[in-house]
């Protein structure tokens, strides 16, 4: 070791220019390694986001003129019932898909967290299958299963004497249908995140609780939930950011009027409304204004959820 070191030093010393060049390369290396991300994020993330705020101030046609109109797009937007409908649809679908998904994942993670569970790998792998299935394929399958006339679900409900439910045409039905798809796709992934956290809890804590007479439910409430706090916060915040930007499901649910998710916009989300105005009607300015409104909604709700969920404390 020492010999190699000294020979290398001896070699490096006379070649002054190369070592200077090398030391410069070495010094900028860390920046070069992180540069690709910052470049990509700047060009395709940050600049477009800031530019959205700028475009929103214009009457901006992609092929024609752009005229500065100040806050006109926003005045129009707030008077537009289609916007409020889309905002309501977005929030409703987000709540219907996030709350059951997180609760389901919590319960399943608890069930999977058994040292002696058989077929554990099979259960875990199966639950990741929906995650690798594309949203497009998921939407087409679920739309068929929930079809009013030929859907499997209504056929089964028929045996219980339930009248066929027209999921796609009604407001609540379409929201539930989309929420089911989102839940189906993500609950397994969330379960695995929770399970990983649960497994990090020392078994001795549960054993001590068992000695003190705490049953399964009490152990779950007083040991599992508080320990899962960081990952619960993480999943709540990410599902807020993702759940408020749902696009593909509503687009593909309605075959005949995809851009509005049905004749009366019953399940048009804000992202779909943005797409309809921007790329269907070529009103880039108005579309950007919808983007700004969506930004405010996402950041606002994500912050509220972050603050609320960090308040989960061990119960006394």
């Amino acid at each position: 070791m020492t010999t190699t070191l000294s020979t290398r030093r001896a070699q490096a010393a006379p070649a002054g220019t190369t070592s200077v060049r090398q030391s410069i390369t070495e010094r900028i290396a860390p920046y070069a390694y992180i540069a690709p991300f910052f470049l990509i994020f700047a060009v395709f993330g940050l600049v477009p986001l800031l530019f959205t705020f700028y475009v929103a101030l214009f009457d901006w046609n992609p092929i024609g003129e752009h005229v500065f109109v100040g806050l006109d797009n926003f005045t129009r937007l707030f008077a537009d019932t289609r916007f409020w409908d889309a905002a309501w649809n977005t929030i409703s679908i987000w709540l219907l898909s996030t709350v059951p998904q997180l609760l389901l994942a919590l319960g399943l993670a608890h069930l999977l967290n058994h040292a002696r569970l058989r077929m554990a790998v099979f259960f875990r792998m199966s639950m990741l299958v929906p995650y690798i299935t594309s949203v497009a394929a998921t939407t087409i399958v679920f739309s068929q299963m929930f079809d009013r006339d030929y859907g499997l679900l209504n056929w089964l409900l028929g045996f219980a004497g339930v009248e066929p439910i027209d999921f796609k045409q009604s407001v609540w039905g379409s929201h539930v249908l989309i929420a089911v798809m989102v839940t189906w796709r993500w609950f397994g992934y969330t379960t695995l995140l929770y399970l990983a956290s649960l497994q990090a809890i020392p078994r001795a804590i549960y054993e001590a609780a068992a000695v003190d007479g705490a049953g399964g439910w009490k152990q779950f409430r007083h040991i599992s939930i508080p320990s899962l706090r960081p990952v619960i916060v993480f999943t709540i915040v990410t599902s807020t950011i993702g759940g408020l930007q749902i696009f593909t499901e509503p687009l593909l649910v309605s075959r005949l009027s995809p851009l509005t998710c049905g004749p009366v916009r019953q399940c048009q989300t804000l992202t779909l409304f943005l797409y309809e105005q921007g790329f269907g009607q070529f009103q880039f300015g108005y579309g950007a204004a919808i983007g700004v409104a969506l930004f405010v909604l996402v950041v606002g709700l994500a912050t509220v959820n972050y603050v609320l969920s960090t308040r989960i404390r061990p119960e006394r």
Partner: protein
Amino acid sequence: MTKTIRRSGERVRWWTYVLLGLAVFACLFPLYWMFVVATTDTATATRLPPEIVPGGNFFHLAGLVFTTVPFVRSVVNSLIVAGTIAVGHAVLCSLAGFAFAKLRFPGRNVLFLIVVLTMTVPTQLAVIPQYMIISSLNWVDTLQALIVPGLASAFGIFWMRQHLSTTISDEILQAARIDGATTWQIFWRIAFPLVRPAAFVLGLLGFVTAWNDFLWPFIVLKSPEMYTAQIAIKALQNSYSIDLGLAMSGSFLATLPLLVLFVFVGRRMVAGIMDGAFKG
């Protein structure tokens, strides 16, 4: 810690299997159902009671998929996009994760904080300016419009940094530096091989995300020859007939490559996700 307590604490009750079995059924049935409809003709897909077992029409419908849209081309496009993103994403995120985990440089902590904060920025709603940028680069209707934005992600950097800082000891790196290795050599010869399993899972996650992406390709791609598999499904759904079997068949064919991949690497994906950022 007597034996009795351990056993009673760890016994798995029968209803645990019932509930988990239901969850597995819920996860797998829609895919089975997709296959059933994809193998029956339209008349059977719209008949009550519905067919519960696969029919013999799979090849007929699959053939229709290939003639209705350039499906082979779409799958190849998807493979190019998802494959490039998987490899590029794994390498670039490892590189950045390595810099944040193992190199000392001015501004490191602030820059890493920025990386983490970008994860909370909802960039999807900026699609209009994103489209303008792609358009000014003359990238509309090209595959690089899909590839380049997906080459690095904050999540990936965070993930790799986590693995690099726990897997690799500073002593190894110092020893290598004393031996005269450059930073690049340390990364490529020592650090990257040690975290290759984590980078592999990250690449897989990137592959799945890119393969299944819809909104961005839907906006950027115009001509059927450039479609990815997901956009081809949408085109099938749009096509002249209301043939459900056709759209289902396309969905099934577009899902099949990932299912096959999953059979081989699913175990590692599960382990990778669980081994991620939130253990402990």
